[in-house]
């Protein structure tokens, strides 16, 4: 299996390199580098957005979570799909009409001044870095577990360097096409696996659901995968589920690499169609991952998903210490192991092995690596543009500087971001991946999302308000995660794993209170212009 996986992954890398070569001639300006000249169609952009979401986290993660925890895993899929309604109704069209390169462009459109842009760039950089590191760590542990002879460190470095090549030479255009192709492959893989699962149950949904309600559990007896509470159990479990639900539905509205995609289309109509396509594709994909998850949980069974991994240290530790889940996570993290949730990530490849044989497994594994590569490339562009466009071009050079300088800084920033994320990923490689992704979502939902939504809809919203809101959301979400159970284990001060239920309202309240403290007439005067632009597209082209 190792060799077949590597060969298929190599084919994908090669294909991506060809695209990069083709795109390199077209990304010789900063506009091309960041936004592919705003020439993508709605359907292309929709597939690319779907690609951003059909990540390893959702393909491997949701399949694994559904296989192990049933409904609680399904909740992630629901939240991530419904989140796009927030984007569709409140953000997609205004973003395309009022922004050029970055999320900070939109927030700072009428909230002029260095403070707002600097903080918006800071939140964007934090979100993308956490997100990126979580994916690269994930890629590392996947390689480690699936492909013998390549260890995690090497895998992280390889993924990091490949991604840099695509981004540096191909810019947004290459990144988009790599994302589109990957989304197609991933969707095909999940359709094939889902059909195999259904075939196993003689194409009867009732039989699949019956089996899921009496899945074999890890210990003796059976569990009902269709009932809530398997992952978020215990006293605070339901509250944690609510907190997660809130973070999921608002998090997407603050994720820079997704929002940035609305700057790549020529019209507001195309921006709307991108979300439409993305929602159809993502929804279908999540239904397939649920089927795969229930299939893996019933056909293979949790015990056997674990058995395939028994040669890794972490699994040996889990088998030897079948203790309480949260405590176990903390113990494992303290001992430097990859935490169990991470290992449930292999449910999809193992299901493929059970139903389709080694070739299908190799294909699934290769597509999973390709996915990580593609998503990380998009994140690099988001982070590089926050650095080059917001911090260098707008703050340090105050809008001066030639086109060549701008592009040079953007590429340098990409290199810098790339190496920073490789270094961070190597440092954090034993960290819980779900924890890192959760960090990104919670920060996005508590800082960027309130500022963006209020800047676009509330006339009185002021610079003080935006700065207060973003800082309160950023700091509170980070602080609550640090004192929460994922970091402090059983000694946690804050009982919930996801800080959203506290930090999201805090972000909104701080933004509103900050605004009410003092009037900002200059920003209020710009609201008319923002509204006309956002709703008509007038003046959107530079």
């Amino acid at each position, binding site marked *: 299996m190792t060799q077949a996986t590597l060969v298929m992954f190599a084919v994908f890398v090669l294909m991506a390199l060809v695209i990069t070569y083709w795109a390199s001639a077209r990304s010789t300006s900063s506009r091309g580098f960041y936004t592919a000249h705003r020439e993508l169609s709605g359907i292309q952009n929709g597939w690319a957005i779907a690609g951003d979401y059909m990540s390893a986290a959702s393909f491997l993660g949701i399949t694994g979570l559904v296989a192990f925890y049933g*409904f609680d895993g*399904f*909740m992630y899929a*629901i*939240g991530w*799909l*419904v989140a*796009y*309604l*927030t984007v*569709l*109704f*409140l953000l997609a069209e205004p973003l395309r009409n009022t922004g050029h390169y970055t999320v900070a462009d939109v927030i700072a459109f009428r909230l002029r001044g260095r403070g707002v842009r600097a903080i918006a760039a800071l939140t964007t950089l934090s979100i993308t870095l956490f997100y990126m590191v979580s994916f690269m760590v994930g890629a590392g542990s996947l390689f480690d577990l699936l492909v013998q002879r390549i260890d995690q460190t090497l895998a992280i470095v390889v993924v990091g360097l490949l991604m840099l090549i695509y981004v540096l030479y191909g810019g947004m255009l290459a990144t988009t096409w790599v994302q589109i192709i990957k989304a197609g492959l991933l969707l095909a893989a999940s359709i094939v696996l889902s059909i195999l699962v259904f075939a196993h149950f003689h194409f009867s949904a*009732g039989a699949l*659901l*019956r089996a*899921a*309600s009496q899945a074999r559990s890890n210990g003796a007896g059976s569990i*009902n995968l*269709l*009932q*809530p*509470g398997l992952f978020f159990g215990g006293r605070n479990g*339901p*509250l944690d*589920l*609510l907190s*997660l*639900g*809130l973070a999921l*539905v608002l998090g997407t509205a603050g994720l820079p690499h997704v929002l940035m995609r609305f700057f790549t289309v020529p019209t*507001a*109509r195309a921006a*709307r*169609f991108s*979300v*439409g396509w993305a*929602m*159809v594709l993502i*929804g279908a994909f*999540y*239904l397939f991952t649920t089927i795969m998850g229930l299939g893996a949980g019933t056909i293979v069974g949790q015990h056997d998903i674990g058995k395939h991994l028994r040669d890794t240290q972490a699994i040996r530790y889990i088998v030897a210490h079948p203790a309480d889940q949260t405590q176990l996570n903390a113990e494992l993290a303290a001992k430097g192991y990859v935490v169990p949730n991470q290992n449930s990530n292999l449910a999809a490849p193992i299901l493929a092995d059970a139903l389709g044989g080694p070739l299908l497994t190799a294909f699934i594994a290769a597509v999973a690596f390709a996915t990580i590569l593609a998503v990380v490339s998009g994140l690099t562009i988001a982070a590089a543009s926050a650095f080059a466009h917001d911090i260098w071009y707008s703050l340090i050079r105050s809008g001066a500087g030639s086109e060549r300088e701008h592009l040079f800084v953007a590429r340098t920033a990409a290199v810098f971001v790339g190496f920073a994320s490789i270094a961070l990923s190597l440092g954090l490689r034993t960290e819980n991946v779900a924890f890192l992704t959760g960090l990104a979502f919670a920060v996005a939902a508590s800082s960027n999302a309130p500022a963006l939504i209020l800047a676009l809809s509330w006339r009185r919203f002021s610079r003080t308000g935006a700065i207060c809101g973003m800082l309160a959301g950023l700091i509170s979400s980070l602080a609550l995660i640090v004192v929460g159970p994922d970091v402090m284990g059983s000694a946690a001060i804050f009982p919930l794993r996801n800080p959203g239920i506290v930090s999201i309202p805090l972000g909104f309240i701080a933004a509103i209170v900050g605004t009410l403290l003092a009037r900002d007439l200059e920003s209020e*005067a710009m609201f*008319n*212009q923002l*509204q*006309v632009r956002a*709703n*008509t*597209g*007038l*003046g959107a*082209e530079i």
Partner: protein
Amino acid sequence: MQQRHLTTSEWDALARDPEFVALLRARRRFIVPSTIFFLIFYLALPLGVVFAPQLMRRPALGSLTIAYAYGLLQFVMAWLLLAVYMVRARAFDERAQALVARAATDLAQ
């Protein structure tokens, strides 16, 4: 429209334009209730798990629990709302385009 930077008073005039005000109102009349509706519809799921855990565990259809069935219903809700908006937005587009065209001739004079 030819590229020229509009002045603040020109933007303000456009914002006060009765047709623009009407367009804004029409958009809001759709978007605000829809957003409130989908947030309530969605949050009812985790809230149900918090406040009515026994109800959510009960089977709805065969082995399918109420929680899982309601989860699947979220997909239907999201897609239906998307379809409705895509149809409605076509009219918004037309009104916005008419406004831009009229503004272009007005400002050229």
